[in-house]
C-alpha cells in the first residue's frame, strides 16, 4: 500500500486532533507516573507477567472499562450528531467510522472482556480451585485480547477506522468499496483478540470440569459457574467460525481471493451467513454470564436459594442450543423462501420460552425473600423489567412478516440496546460492585452508587424507549442525519438527552471508584455482604491470597458457603496446612501477543515484511515455550501460615 505520511497519521479533523493530543498527554502522564513512583518493576512482575486468575480478571475489567469509555464517547458523538435534523458535527465518513467502531468495541472489546474478567475472578473461587487449568494460557488469552483491542483502537488516529458497520457486510467491505487500511484493522484486530477468546473457552471448560473441589458435583455448582460453563461451550463452537470467516475476508482483501467479492463468482451473502452463525451465539456469549451474575446477586440479597435451580440450568442449556439455530433472523429480508423464514421465525420465538422461565424463576426467588436494596441488587432488579421490554420486542422482531418493516430501523437498534444494556451492561456493573470487595478489599460507596444507578437507568430508558417509535416511524439505522420534514426531531432530541444522562451516570460510577479507594472502610471479613452463599465468600480474607484457599473446602450441597454458615462450621479454622503447588509467572504470553500485534499492524498496511517478522517472532516464542521446562513451585507451609495470620489479624 502506497501511503503518504499525512495519510498514515490522520490529519485535518479537529475532533481527531483533540483525541491525538489527549492520547499523547495521557501516555506521557502514565510513563512519567510509573517512572516517578518507580513502579515499572511492580507493573512487570505483579501484573504483566502474572498468571494469577484474579489479577488477570482485574486487568480484563480495567481494559473493558477503558473500552466502555471509548465506546461511550463514540455513542455520545453519534447521539449529538442526531440530536437535530441536518446537523453537521460529523460528516458521513466520520459518522460511519464511529458507529462501526462503537459496535465492534462494545461487543468484542467491552462486553465480552468485562464478563470474562468477572468469570476469571470468580469462577475458580466458586468451584474451590486454586487457579485455572492452564494459567499460562490464561495470561496469553488476556494479552492477545488486549493487543487485538489496541490494534483496533489505534485505527482512528493511524490510517483511518473501518466504516462498513460492525457486521462488515460484503461486498461493502471489499477493497473496491472500502479502500484504505480501515477494514484491515477490523479483520486483524478481531482475529488476534478472537484467538484469546477461544483459548479462554477451552481453559474454563477444562477448569470447571476438572478442578472442582471435593463434593462440588455438577448439580452443586453455583449458577454463575453453570452459565460460564455453557458460555465457554458456545465460545468453543462459535469462535472457530469467526476465525475462518475473518481469515477468508482477509485473503480477499490482502491476497486477491474471491470468497465474498462481486467479481470472479464471489458470494457476498456467504459472509452474512457465516458472520451470523458466529454472531448470534455471540449474543448469548455476552448474555448468559449476565444471567448467572443476576442469579448470584438476587439470591444473595433476597437471602433465598435460587428458585427452580435445575429448571434454570435446563433453560440455559436449551438457550445455548437454540442460539445456533436462529441466525437467519438477522436477514429475513434476504429473500429466502417462505419456508426458511417460517422455520427461523419459530425457532427464534422459541428462545422466549426458556428465557421467560428464567424471568419467572428470578421473580419467585424474590418471593418470600428478605430483599435488601444494595447497589448491586438495584442493578440486578432493574434488569428484570428492562430486559422484559427488550425481550418482548425481540419476539416482535422474530415475526418475519412484520420484521420486513422493523429490519434495519431504530426499532431494532432499540431492541438490542434494551437486551444488551439491561442484560450485559447492568450485569457488568452489578457484578463489579458485588465482587469489588473481593478484588480490592473495600466496598464501593453505596450513596454515590445509588446516584449513578438512578441517573444511568433513567437515562437509558429516556435514550432508547423513544427509538422504538422512531423505528416504527420509518427511521433507518446508520443514517448520519435526517430532514426536518421527516418529523423525527423531538424523539431524537429526547434520546440524545438520555444518552448524556447515561454518560453522567458512568462518570459518577468512575468517580465512585476513586472516592471509595480513598474513603471506604477496609473489609476484614471475606463475606463482606454478610449474606454470601457461594465459596468465593469463604476465602480467608477480603482479598483472597494468591493461592485462594489455604485448605481446599469440601462441599455438601448447593450454596456451599451458606450451608456451612447455617451448620455453624468455620471453614478456615483447620490449621493442618500442606504445601501448595502454584504456577510460575511468565513473560512469554505478553511477548507473544506483542509479536502478533506487530504482525497484524504490518498486514493492515500490506507491509508484508513486518507481518513476516512479527509472525516469525511469534513462532519463535511458541517454540521456546514448548521446550521450556516449568513445573511451577511449592508454597511452603510457613508462608501459608504467615499469610493466613496476617489475614486474620486485620
Amino acid at each position: 500500500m502506497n501511503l503518504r505520511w499525512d495519510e498514515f497519521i490522520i490529519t485535518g479533523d479537529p475532533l481527531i486532533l483533540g483525541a491525538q493530543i489527549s492520547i499523547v498527554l495521557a501516555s506521557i502522564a502514565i510513563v512519567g507516573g510509573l517512572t516517578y513512583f518507580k513502579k515499572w518493576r511492580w507493573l512487570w512482575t505483579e501484573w504483566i507477567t502474572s498468571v494469577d486468575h484474579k489479577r488477570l480478571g482485574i486487568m480484563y475489567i480495567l481494559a473493558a472499562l477503558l473500552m466502555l469509555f471509548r465506546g461511550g464517547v463514540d455513542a455520545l458523538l453519534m447521539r449529538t450528531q442526531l440530536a437535530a435534523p441536518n446537523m453537521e458535527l460529523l460528516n458521513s465518513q466520520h459518522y460511519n467510522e464511529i458507529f462501526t467502531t462503537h459496535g465492534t468495541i462494545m461487543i468484542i472489546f467491552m462486553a465480552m472482556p468485562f464478563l470474562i474478567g468477572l468469570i476469571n475472578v470468580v469462577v475458580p473461587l466458586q468451584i474451590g480451585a486454586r487457579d485455572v487449568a492452564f494459567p499460562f494460557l490464561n495470561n496469553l488469552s488476556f494479552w492477545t485480547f488486549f493487543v487485538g483491542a489496541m490494534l483496533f483502537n489505534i485505527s482512528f488516529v493511524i490510517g483511518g477506522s473501518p466504516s462498513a458497520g460492525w457486521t462488515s457486510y460484503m461486498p461493502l467491505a471489499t477493497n473496491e468499496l472500502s479502500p484504505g487500511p480501515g477494514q484491515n484493522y477490523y479483520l486483524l484486530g478481531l482475529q488476534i483478540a478472537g484467538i484469546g477468546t477461544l483459548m479462554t473457552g477451552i481453559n474454563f471448560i477444562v477448569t470447571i470440569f476438572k478442578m472442582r473441589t471435593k463434593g462440588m458435583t455438577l448439580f452443586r455448582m453455583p449458577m454463575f459457574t453453570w452459565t460460564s460453563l455453557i458460555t465457554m461451550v458456545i465460545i468453543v463452537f462459535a469462535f472457530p467460525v469467526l476465525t475462518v470467516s475473518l481469515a477468508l475476508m482477509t485473503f480477499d482483501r490482502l491476497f486477491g481471493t474471491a470468497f465474498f467479492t462481486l467479481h470472479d463468482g464471489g458470494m457476498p451473502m456467504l459472509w452474512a451467513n457465516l458472520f451470523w452463525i458466529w454472531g448470534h451465539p455471540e449474543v448469548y456469549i455476552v448474555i448468559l454470564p449476565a444471567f448467572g451474575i443476576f442469579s448470584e446477586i438476587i439470591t444473595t440479597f433476597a437471602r433465598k436459594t435460587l428458585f427452580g435451580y435445575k429448571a434454570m440450568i435446563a433453560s440455559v442449556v436449551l438457550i445455548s442450543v437454540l442460539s445456533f439455530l436462529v441466525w437467519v433472523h438477522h436477514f429475513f429480508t434476504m429473500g429466502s423462501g417462505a419456508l426458511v423464514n417460517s422455520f427461523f421465525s419459530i425457532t427464534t420465538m422459541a428462545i422466549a420460552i426458556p428465557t421467560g422461565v428464567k424471568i419467572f424463576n428470578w421473580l419467585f426467588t424474590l418471593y418470600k425473600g428478605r430483599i435488601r436494596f444494595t447497589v448491586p441488587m438495584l442493578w440486578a432488579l432493574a434488569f428484570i423489567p428492562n430486559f422484559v421490554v427488550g425481550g418482548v420486542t425481540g419476539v416482535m422482531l422474530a415475526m418475519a412478516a412484520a420484521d420486513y418493516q422493523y429490519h434495519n430501523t431504530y426499532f431494532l437498534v432499540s431492541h438490542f440496546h434494551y437486551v444488551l444494556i439491561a442484560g450485559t451492561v447492568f450485569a457488568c456493573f452489578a457484578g463489579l460492585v458485588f465482587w469489588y470487595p473481593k478484588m480490592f478489599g473495600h466496598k464501593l460507596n453505596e450513596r454515590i452508587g445509588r446516584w449513578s444507578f438512578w441517573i444511568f437507568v433513567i437515562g437509558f430508558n429516556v435514550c432508547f424507549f423513544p427509538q422504538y417509535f422512531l423505528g416504527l416511524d420509518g427511521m433507518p439505522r446508520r443514517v448520519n442525519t435526517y430532514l426536518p420534514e421527516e418529523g423525527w426531531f423531538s424523539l431524537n432530541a429526547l434520546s440524545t438527552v438520555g444518552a448524556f444522562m447515561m454518560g453522567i451516570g458512568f462518570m459518577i460510577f468512575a468517580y465512585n471508584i476513586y472516592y471509595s479507594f480513598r474513603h471506604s472502610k477496609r473489609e476484614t471479613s471475606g463475606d463482606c455482604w454478610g449474606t454470601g452463599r457461594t465459596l468465593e465468600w469463604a476465602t480467608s480474607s477480603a482479598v483472597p491470597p494468591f493461592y485462594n484457599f489455604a485448605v481446599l473446602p469440601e462441599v455438601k450441597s448447593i450454596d456451599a458457603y451458606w450451608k456451612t454458615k447455617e451448620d455453624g462450621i468455620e471453614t478456615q479454622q483447620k490449621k493442618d496446612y500442606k504445601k501448595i503447588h502454584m504456577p510460575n509467572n511468565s513473560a512469554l504470553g505478553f511477548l507473544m501477543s506483542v509479536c502478533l500485534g506487530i504482525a497484524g499492524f504490518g498486514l493492515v498496511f500490506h507491509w508484508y515484511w513486518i507481518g513476516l517478522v512479527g509472525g516469525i517472532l511469534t513462532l519463535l516464542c511458541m517454540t521456546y515455550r514448548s521446550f521450556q521446562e516449568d513445573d511451577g513451585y511449592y508454597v511452603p507451609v510457613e508462608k501459608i501460615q504467615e499469610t493466613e495470620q496476617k489475614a486474620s489479624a486485620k
Partner: protein
Amino acid sequence: MFHRLKSLVLFGLISLLMVGCSAPTVLKPKGPVAEQQSDLIVYSIIFMLTIVAVIFVLFTVILVKYKDRKENPNYDPKHEGNVLLEIVWTVIPVVIVIALSIPTVSTIYSLEKAPVATAHKEPLVIHATSANWKWIFSYPEEDIETVNYLNIPEDRPILFRLTSADSMAALWIPQLGGQKYNMAGMETKLYLQADHVGTYKGRNANFTGDGFTNQRFEVHALTEEDYAAWVEDTQENAPELTQAEYDLKLMIPGSVDEMTFSNTHLDWVNHVKNASYALEARERLGYINRNPHAKGPVPPLKDPSELEFYTNPESRETETSDSNQGHGGHEDHEDMTQDEDMSHGEGH
C-alpha cells in the same frame, strides 16, 4: 422502586403522546401489503403489552411485599421450587408462541404472492436496481426507466425485481410494505401495492457507505389514467439512455437528481446476471475509489467518447460475454426465477 416504574411509565406516555398525535408511518398503511404487516404488528403488540403488564405488576408487588423490614413473617429461605408453577410458566409462553406463529407464517406465505384483492390483475413489473447511491427503476414492458423516483398505478400489484449494481441495499417504502435486500448477482422479488393516490417516501434501508443517508426516492401513486398518460408521455418525450451515459452518470459512486429515459439499461446489462458490471465500468472510466482519508487531487475520469468500448460496439460484445462467463455460478438461480415466472403465468 415505585419511583423508577413511575418514571418509566411517564416517559412512555410522553413518547406516545408525541407520536400519538399521528400514528407512526408503519402503522399508517396505504396498501394491502403494508396493511397485513401493520395488522400483524398491532396483534403482537397486544400480546406483548399483556406480558409486560403481568410481569411488571408481579415484580412490583413482590418487591414491596418482601422488602427487608424488622418484622417479615413471610420470609422462607427454604422455598426453592414448585413444579406446578414452573409448568404453568412454561406452557403459557408455548401457547403464546403458537398464537404468534400461526398468523406470522400465514402472512409470510401471503406476502410472497400478489395481494389477494388484486390477484386477478397482471402485476406491473419494475426492476429496482440500487447503485451507490442511486435508485434505477426500469419498466421493461413500457420500455422506460426512471432514476430516484417511481410512478406507479394505484390498485394494481407491483412486482419489484430487486438487484444491485454494487453494495447490498434494501428497497423500503414503509407505507406500502416492508423491505427486501437488493444484492448484486442475485434477484429478490417484492410485491407492493398502493390503494390510494399520493406520494410516499421510499429509501434504501441497508447501509451502503458514504452516500447512504441520501439514498431516498419518492413514490407517486397515480390513477390508472394518469399513469397511462405519464407512460405515453415518457415514451415519446424522454431522452434515450446510452451505455456511456449510464456508466458515467449512474455506475460511478455519487448522488444524482431525478432522471427519466425512454429505454432501459436492461438492453445492455442485467445486474442479476453480471455482478461485476459496475466495477468493470468504473475501471473502464478510470474511476479510483480512494482511501477516504487520502489527500490531494482526485484523478479525472476518462471521456467515454474516446474509449473504444463505447464507440465500437463489436469490442463490447466480446467483453460482456466474457464477464458473463465468470458468473456461471449464478446460472442456476437465474433458471429458477424463470421457472417460477412460468408457473406464475400459468396460475392466472
